[in-house]
């Protein structure tokens, strides 16, 4: 892959960014989702509206935030609203088109775990937890997931269901009355998975150049099926790569600046 002139993370982020169209309103998680959304906004989709769960609405950060609470997000936002409002009026109110999530584990129906590995009461690994993810997964008109793919993260059975995808599939989500459409696309470092009609099961619909269907299946903890036709996704264009690398470089430089607090007296 290195020979291709870009890394797996880079093509994943570029591919995720390409899913976002013009004026969409996105509720953004930190990390890979944040990089993808800001890349899109700074390149092909300048009208993209980004909302972070800290309450920064229509924010236009120059550098990627390390936390949802970064002042960069507040200073470049149209407005900053209190937490109850961003979840009640914006997210639950049905005013978010796309929710962009990551997670530690995903199952074949797009349900997500970001809470624990192992048993909740006696966990092997205690993860940071759900944060805003449960309600993003419930209320956003559609959800995009960005995750690095391996048998440890794409699992047969979640240790804990933090956020609902299609539940047990076969239309259960729709019947249960969850307002949003659920995870429409899962973008990984191998390609893209999408839910099959009727069954709601995630199937492989696209791969990156030089990735085989078998490689993706080997990196999946359940018997992953491929769609009848698996597309090959375009490699990142040089301007996309340049924009992404510049974004990361700006971010690194900004975050390396030492902090000095002037105390009175």
């Amino acid at each position, binding site marked *: 892959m290195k020979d291709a002139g870009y890394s797996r993370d880079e093509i994943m982020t570029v591919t995720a960014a390409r899913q976002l169209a013009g004026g969409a309103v996105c509720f953004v998680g930190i990390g890979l989702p944040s990089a993808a959304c800001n890349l899109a906004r700074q390149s092909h989709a300048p009208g993209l509206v980004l909302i972070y*769960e*800290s309450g920064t609405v229509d924010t236009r950060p120059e550098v990627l935030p390390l936390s949802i609470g970064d*002042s960069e997000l*507040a200073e470049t936002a149209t407005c900053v609203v209190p*937490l*109850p409002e961003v979840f009640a009026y914006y997210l639950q109110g049905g005013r978010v088109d796309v929710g962009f999530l990551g997670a530690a584990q995903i199952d074949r129906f797009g349900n997500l775990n970001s809470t624990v590995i192992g048993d*909740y009461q006696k966990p092997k690994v205690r993860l940071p937890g759900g944060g805003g993810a449960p309600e993003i997964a419930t209320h956003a008109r559609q959800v995009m997931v960005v995750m690095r793919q391996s048998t440890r993260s794409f699992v047969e059975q979640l240790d804990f269901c933090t956020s609902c995808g299609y*539940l047990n599939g076969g239309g259960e989500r729709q019947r249960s009355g969850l307002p949003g459409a659920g995870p429409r696309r899962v973008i990984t470092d191998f390609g893209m998975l999408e839910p099959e009609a009727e069954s709601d099961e995630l199937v492989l619909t696209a791969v990156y150049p030089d990735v085989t269907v078998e490689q993706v299946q080997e990196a999946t903890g359940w018997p992953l099926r491929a769609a009848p036709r698996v597309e090959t996704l375009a490699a990142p264009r040089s301007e996309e790569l340049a924009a992404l690398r510049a974004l990361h470089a700006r971010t690194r430089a900004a975050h390396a600046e030492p902090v*000095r607090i002037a*105390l009175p007296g």
Partner: protein
Amino acid sequence: YDQMIGMGCARALTFSWGGNPGVGSLHRLRDAVENRWPVPLLLDERSHAEMAVAYTAGASALPCGVMKGPPLTDLATLSTDRVRPLSCPFTGQALIAVSAVTPDVTILHAQQADGDGNVLLRGIIGAAREAAMAARCVIATVEERVERLTADMNAVILPHWLISAIAVVPGGAWPSYAQGHYPRDNAFYSDWDGIARDRERFSAWMKANVLGCADHGSMLRQLGVAS
């Protein structure tokens, strides 16, 4: 709060996200939950949205608040103390009732306090206002005391009679930031990962920099953050 957990000061944690933002885990929190060190920690875990509703209910003196339902995640169904199904009395629609959170004390850091004791919050305020108004007692630390708050009439202000005590603590948000005063110390968040990963290194750091310092200002000076 990773420090309070690691020092065994916390019996229970009501929270909706417990990580080191942009870095990874809070290792003292992990150690307490995974290995009960130094003492077991009871988790009262909710999602951000549930927490927002719980504080809003607390601030409104209501025993519970309402969200759109039904509750289907493992988190929502983990304990019936936090989340219960509720049916809309008008439409029959499936809703979620979230029990109120009413802290004994809410401690928060803000930008300014004026002579009357009104406190100004500015920037990303999260649920600070609701957490304060849900509490029986509010303690505020502020960057500065001023004659008159430099704030628009629609600013977020906690009025004086809701506040029990105010301390002027410049740099009190560190290692986080105070909007309009100083930025977030991202390097320290990274460093904390190493410090907190190891029990002995953590204890030594706490002894030197928290227990061994007279106040917040001396700690900041000792760490070379403040001048």
